């Protein structure tokens, strides 16, 4: 259970006796890493002569932190409990509850599993009929890992080195294999090479497959050396008996004879632009070689790679940079997974320091989340003012984090939020709900026609997304007035129509209706000839379609 639930009452008792001590104790409760973030970010504001936005109000911040930590907006009880709670540490206490209270473990794990599934296998990985990936297997591995708060380095190691079967319920199931299972067979494992280096080390190497890159310190030789680590690895398809349908796949390590057919000296060839052929052996990016044997009994190449990645500073930085961008909307670099001298960071010193702290604290993701969510930049209002006009990364400026940047919720956050805000959750088992959710999400995915499986999403604020929210089934369900629906239940609570309109706004937007909005509600009520449920339905439709609802703010 929560640390704060035990610490806080103790502090309160102390507080009534010795005020001075309490203050010191309260300050000590804020991790030093938070102060480090604040100092560096504030220095940036001074350097650019800007003043930050004011602090976000409690309700706004509560909605924000729920969305980022557990992937949905707070329900009305959660919101009102937080807003009415007393004490200057209540934000810290909420973060602690979301991270450590058993009540939220499942949602926390499920949200982060979703985020990482999209990073590791894309939004559509595993959805094709002949795909070797089991999306469910990937999610299961991640859910279990986040639920147990497995450390970040351990997760990375698992994903890079895993062997076993993709699908839950099969023999040797190991969901972590789904990251690499469709990336090792084709094209000599080129995709495994570029994905692993990009996602975990922030090194964009896809171009160096064919040539030295002009803006990147990676050379073609390094690409094939890194690639060599994956060459003992193969994916095997397992078919549904008596058919040619893929049931699942298995990722295995096997002896690699090398391209010169000598397992004692298992090398790979690659070709320079001018047609000359060169050879490569497994060598890590820092120049450290491993044994050249291709026999698994001599050396497990991916295991060696995993160990060297864990020792690499780049892994720490990449992990921190990604987490920061997931919470603040922009990373210290853009794109977030491209680190290096060719792409300067907005706050290089802070990025390094946070990376060091992350390693020192055993890659505990929950601690990192605590530092970020309690930091000053994460607690600012989402307001662009005359004092920080230049802080606008949406037009290409380096972020200065002097306000909370508006950003669209992810499709998954929107889905979960609609479900929470209306209890529109689908009936059925976990698997059935997951299928429904996945079907809904897939309507936004557009694939590019390349071998690298590139894809884009139309869940980007454009018309198809707006149409879906205007008229889609999920919205229809959310605004239904039939017996037992959200609107129906709401209509039976509260003192007055006014009160119920305010409840609608709190549920969707974590605030009460403005004067103008209340006037509009009155007009709607008249237009609906006094049918309050229909008025609430119209208003709820408007709330769910508003920029304020679909944006993280």
């Amino acid at each position, binding site marked *: 259970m929560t640390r704060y639930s035990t610490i806080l009452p103790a502090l309160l008792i102390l507080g009534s006796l010795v005020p001075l001590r309490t203050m010191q104790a309260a300050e000590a409760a804020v991790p030093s890493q938070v102060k480090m973030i604040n100092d560096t970010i504030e220095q940036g504001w001074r350097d650019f002569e800007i003043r930050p936005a004011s602090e976000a109000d409690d309700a706004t911040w509560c909605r924000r932190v729920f969305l980022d930590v557990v992937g949905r907006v707070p329900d009305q009880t959660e919101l009102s409990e937080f807003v009415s709670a007393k004490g200057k540490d209540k934000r810290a206490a909420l973060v602690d509850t979301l991270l450590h209270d058993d009540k939220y473990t499942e949602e926390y794990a499920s949200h982060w599993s979703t985020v990482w599934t999209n990073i590791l296998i894309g939004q559509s990985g595993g959805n094709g009929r002949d795909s070797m990936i089991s999306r469910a297997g990937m999610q299961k591995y991640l859910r279990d890992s986040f639920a147990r708060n497995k450390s970040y380095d351990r997760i990375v190691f698992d994903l890079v080195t895993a062997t076993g079967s993709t699908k839950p319920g099969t023999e040797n199931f190991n969901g972590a294999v789904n990251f690499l299972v469709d990336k090792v067979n084709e*094209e000599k494992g080129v995709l495994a090479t570029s994905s692993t280096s990009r996602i975990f080390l922030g090194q964009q190497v*896809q*171009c160096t497959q*064919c*040539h030295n890159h002009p803006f990147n310190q990676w050379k073609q030789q390094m690409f094939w050396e890194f690639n060599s680590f994956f060459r003992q690895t193969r994916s095997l398809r397992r078919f549904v008996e008596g058919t040619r349908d893929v049931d699942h796949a298995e990722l295995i390590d096997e002896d690699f004879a090398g391209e010169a057919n000598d397992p004692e000296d298992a090398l790979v060839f690659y070709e320079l632009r001018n047609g000359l052929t060169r050879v490569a052996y497994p060598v890590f990016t820092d120049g450290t070689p491993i044994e050249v044997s291709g026999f698994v009994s001599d050396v497990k190449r991916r295991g060696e790679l995993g160990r060297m990645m864990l020792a690499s500073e780049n892994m720490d930085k990449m992990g921190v940079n990604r987490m920061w961008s997931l919470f603040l909307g922009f990373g210290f670099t*853009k*794109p977030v997974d*491209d680190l290096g001298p060719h792409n300067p960071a907005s706050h290089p010193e802070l990025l390094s320091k946070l990376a060091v702290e992350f390693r020192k604290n055993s890659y505990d993701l929950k601690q990192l989340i605590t530092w970020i969510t309690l930091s000053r930049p994460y607690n600012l209002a*989402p*307001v*662009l*003012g005359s004092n920080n006009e230049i802080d*606008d990364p*949406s*037009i*290409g*400026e380096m972020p200065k984090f002097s*306000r909370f*940047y*508006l950003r*669209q919720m992810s499709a998954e956050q929107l889905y979960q939020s609609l479900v929470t805000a209306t209890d529109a959750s689908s009936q059925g088992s976990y698997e059935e709900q997951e299928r429904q959710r996945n079907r809904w999400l897939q309507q936004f995915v*557009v*694939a*590019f*026609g*390349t*071998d*690298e499986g*590139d894809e*884009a999403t*139309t869940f*980007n*604020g*454009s*018309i*198809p997304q*707006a*149409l*879906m929210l*205007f*008229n*889609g089934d999920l919205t229809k369900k959310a605004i239904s007035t039939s017996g037992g629906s959200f609107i129906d239940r709401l209509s039976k609570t509260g003192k007055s129509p006014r009160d119920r309109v305010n409840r609608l706004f709190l549920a969707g*937007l974590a605030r009460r209706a*403005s004067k103008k*909005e209340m006037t*509009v509600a*009155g*007009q*709607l009520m*008249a*237009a609906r000839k006094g049918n309050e449920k229909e008025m609430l339905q*119209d208003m709820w*439709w*408007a*709330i769910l*379609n*508003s*920029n*304020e609802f679909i*944006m993280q703010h």
Partner: protein
Amino acid sequence: MINNWQTPSGMSRRHFMQHLAGSSAVATASMTMGGAIKANAEEMRKNGKSAILLWMGGGPATIDIWDLKPGAPTGGPFKPISTTGDLQICEHMPMVAQQMKHLSVVRSMSTREADHNRGRYYMHTGYVPNPNIEHPSYGSVIAHEVMDQRPNLEIPPFVSVGGASAGPGFLGMAWSPFSVTSNGQIRNLKMNLEDNRLLQRMAALDTIETGFSQRTRDLPASEHAKVLKKTFDLMTSDQMEAFRVEKEPEEVKERYGTDRFGQGCLLARRLVEAGVPFVEVDLGGWDNHGGIHTLFKDTKLPQLDRSMSALVEDLNQRELLKDTVVIWMGEFGRTPRINQNAGRDHWARSWSCVVGGGDINGGLAVGETSSDGTAVESEPFSSEDLMSTVCKGLGISTEKTFTSKNGRPMKIAGGGKIISELVA
């Protein structure tokens, strides 16, 4: 006020939207019109030019289609055939060969981006990716430039069929491609609610939107309002008829090809006919690192041949081709050298694009490559040059300069040079 709410029947949809626009400062050209004038398609086309981009995702081997090297070790097995233009193309493109008097091949494309994402970005925008700025794609730019000639267009000015195209960059989400599948079916189009109530919901929505935009002053908030307006237009417009590709006669559908690309090309014609300035149709599957020639002969080229020839022929017969520029390209070409898997790898140094229609001369081969196809031996052309030429063919001035939101001036088509042979 409340009375207005109950009886907005005297209020036209446009008038209502104008009212909304005034209150949220999202007025656009199309909303300053007075009454609800429904111009017919023919009227609209009088002063309107359009472009259709056939996007070949993955980077096709143009050496096997448009610039053959028979006999060279890099040449592959295909033979060239004569066409109605002053050039030869691949033997597996006989129907397109009949249309080549309308199309020209630029054989001296020479670019530097041989990664899919970077190449796609560069060929769609004329700029290399830059972490600090998002450049608008040509579709967004062209739609933006010709929209003032289409005050009555209610459907999105930039439609992407069967693919994702590339985004509007700093022009804003209102200029992003509207992605549809090739059957033209649009999800969630109808609310099935009486008009008045829809309008009232929109008004309530507008109140919330405006409040949030004014409080935060952040761009994404106000961009959202613009998209809502376009969405509303879409839901209530008769022009959506243009998407109903299933209404075409069977023989036309068959001439275009009943696969996705064929139907996408047919949809593109319908959209252009309805006044849409920019349509992109995607045909993926050109990332052929292995077994390329069998695949080309049996699948890729027959498919391309049928649909591309149908589109050009049909546009011409309907007298639309003189106002419609057709562009065929991918993100790059492929290596002249055939690799050990009988495929070709990424190659940007020497490759071909195809353009025609509008004011662009057809039937020409512009520029040339060396005897094995590995180098350009005439003046090299870039994405910027090609797109400047397309703009010229559409009557859009390439002197126009945009200002990005952080104040950088940016020329349309990246200040490329016009390929003079094509527009002389």
